[in-house]
């Protein structure tokens, strides 16, 4: 009997929130996975704190609802503990690009085999609308009512510079593409990063802007680093330019969890080692 994928928890996202599209996409991917005969018991969702993270309550799979900005190291621990698990992080832009940016960069650097999906609504949703590192300059949020004076970070560029092996960008209103990207990210052996432009109906309702600026990349998954860099710079999360959606870059290399697999030692082996060590110390 296929699993009921949605819990009974009451959904509290605002009407029109892009998180619905993300939840729907993940649900469909899980259901596909089940149909392919793979177990859902091996899937773990790791979340930060924010509107995005409520997906922990809504999807009926294993989940670690962690701390603001800290889902990625938790996910890293989980994957290292049990490399058979499929570990997916749903994080916010405040979460992953501000509070816990270092963890994102180190996950990419290490090439730990997890998939990070950034619900990038370019605002702190749950705390009612402050700017994030990807808000455009001049953004009037509640902590910057006169407008920010900082240019946004370009997370795609940052991930390229950090050694990520799978880098993509999706959009919550392009659900077919989104599903393909997340599926490919999960399938990618190694660290996968997907920045998802997510509509925040309440604090960053950029639907019209995105709709008129996004375009889909032709091929999926190129290993051409320079080309990826150029593409990443086309739209810098601030300028008025075409916004490429799709896979910017892929390259497979040994993952951190593969390289770190310990040779397990039972209690007896350990006790022997301890005895030997004691012996060497006298």
């Amino acid at each position: 009997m296929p699993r009921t994928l949605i819990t009974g928890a009451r959904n509290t996202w605002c009407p029109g929130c892009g998180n619905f599209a993300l939840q729907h996409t993940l649900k469909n991917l899980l259901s596909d996975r089940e149909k392919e005969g793979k177990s859902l018991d091996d899937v773990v969702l790791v979340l930060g704190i924010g509107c995005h993270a409520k997906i922990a309550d809504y999807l009926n799979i294993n989940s670690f609802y962690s701390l603001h900005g800290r889902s990625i190291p938790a996910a890293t621990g989980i994957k290292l503990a049990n490399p058979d698990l499929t570990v997916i992080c749903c994080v916010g832009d405040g979460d992953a690009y501000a509070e816990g940016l270092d963890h994102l960069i180190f996950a990419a650097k290490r090439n730990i085999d997890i998939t990070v999906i950034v619900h990038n609504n370019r605002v702190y949703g749950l705390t009612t609308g402050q700017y994030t590192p990807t808000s455009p300059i001049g953004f009037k949020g509640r902590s910057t009512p006169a407008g920010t004076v900082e240019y946004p970070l370009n997370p795609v560029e940052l991930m390229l510079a950090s050694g990520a092996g799978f880098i993509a960008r999706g959009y919550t209103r392009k659900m077919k593409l989104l599903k393909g990207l997340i599926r490919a990210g999960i399938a990618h052996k190694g660290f996968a990063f997907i920045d998802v432009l997510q509509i925040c109906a309440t604090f960053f309702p950029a639907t019209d802007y995105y709709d008129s600026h996004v375009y889909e990349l032709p091929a999926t998954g190129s290993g051409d680093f320079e080309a990826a860099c150029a593409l990443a710079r086309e739209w810098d999360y601030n300028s008025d330019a075409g916004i490429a959606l799709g896979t910017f870059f892929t390259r497979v290399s040994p993952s951190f969890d593969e390289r770190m697999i310990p040779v397990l030692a039972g209690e007896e082996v350990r006790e022997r080692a301890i005895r030997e060590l004691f012996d060497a110390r006298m």
Partner: protein
Amino acid sequence: MNEVSVLIGGKAGDGINSAGAMVAQLLNHLGYRIYLYFDYPSLIRGGHNFAIIRGSERDVGTCRNHVDFVLALNEETIERHKEKYTQKTVFISNRDLIKNGAYGIPVKAILAEEKAPVIMGNSALIGGFAKAAGIEWEVVDAVFRRHIPKGADLNLAVAKKAFDLFDPVQLIKKSENPPQPLVSGNEAIGLGLIRGGLDAYVSYPMTPSSGILHFLAEQKERFGITVVHPENEIAVILMALGFAYAGKKSAIGTSGGGFCLMTEGLSLAGMAEIPIVLVVSQRTGPSTGLPTYTGQSDLQFVLHAGQGEFPRMIVAPGDAQEALLWSETAMDIAWKCQCPAFILVDKTLSEGTYSLDPAAARNTYGAGPLLWDGKIPYRRYEDTASGLSPMAFPGAKDAVVKVNSYMHDEAGITAEDAEISNQMTKKRLKKWEYLIEVMQGYPGVLQSGKSDASTALLCWGSVKGVCEEAAAELGLRVIRPVVLAPFPIDKIQKALMGVKRLIVVEENVTAQLAALAERHGIIIHEKILRYDGRPFTVEDLVSRVKEVGI
């Protein structure tokens, strides 16, 4: 003479620590119990380093003010420690660097003769010391061969040259005890964790805890564990919690500053009920403070760290033997009670070297962690009589394992209403009671010294050694809680029977154990505190006790 103290000193980078270890092994093979204190400033080269090796026929865990032998690699060593010399102190020194030293050894000449590298100069001093102390060459030979397998011959040749220079001066009597393994407190903690079933050790280097990281990283293949050194301490604790969520026993190690960064993760562990062992090794604070010196000033911080209220276990072993035992135990408790368990130590214990009895009793495991029986639906936070919810780990068939930092219902789904909040807070309270009950079964308070003395020293952690010696000298009782949370008030009250005068001894400014005891209604009569980063010595403490009056 049934006890001896040897000081060896030189510049940072001179290898004082390993030379000290060799002296310790010589005494070990004479049948002495060992305590080695290593003193160094926070720098890599230059600066003054010294080790004091104390051997005694009884167990020992502290230094005395005076030393019997000084092995001086430089002039500064002789100058710096004047207050430790007695009439009988024997000086073995490097004649090339120290004018007017007694028992000067022409190190340069010996090395040249043997074509040995500079670093082997220490072996010359050790050889000279052995002879002066009347240690037989056979012992020296055996110890060098065991402990410097590579290059033993050359080192021995160098040592022999110095050995042959002198006559015995002050004989160290051989004792009948067999040698015991000498391990540092940090190593003992590592070994205890391994015995407790450690799967993963996650740590970011920070003195004085780094020794555990280095030791376990070095030994990880032999023990079959994962060792991770991540980008910072926040990542450390979250990774460790990730391991535990996935069913692997994890521990972290740090010191105060790094622990600060873990407090948010600690509170997460409390709310999400994820077992984790935290080793916090204290140094002199506040802030960066004295990174390589000791202190006991983080007890109250560790007791209360993290927002909100949740059960935690804190144990403060007093020496390497206890560190071994209680580290194993801490892992057991963390998983049995699904809560954070702390091993709270300090620089003195972490970086001190102690004799260890390898055959000493181990933690006796009861039931182990409460595991899911497979009945669906799995609810991670099932509200049970004990407050403990059976554990399952992701990957388990048909278990949807949801852990949550928010207030949550039994299934782990966020809940904000008053009723569930109340219920689940009470569930965690029951677990707290359960932890208290479990800890009843452990010897959480140790008593030593004169059992009917009406004056007692109350202390915790590494001051064990010095308190016990001072108490022996003065005829006092020593009462020492090893478990600091849940606070074993009943056991302390029992140990206090007949005590009329209670003197707290701590290495901090505000008397933190005293505050904890007072909060439980215990009356402290005097507080003896030291806070310059240096551990008490026996004479120190004896005179401070006499000062406040017995």
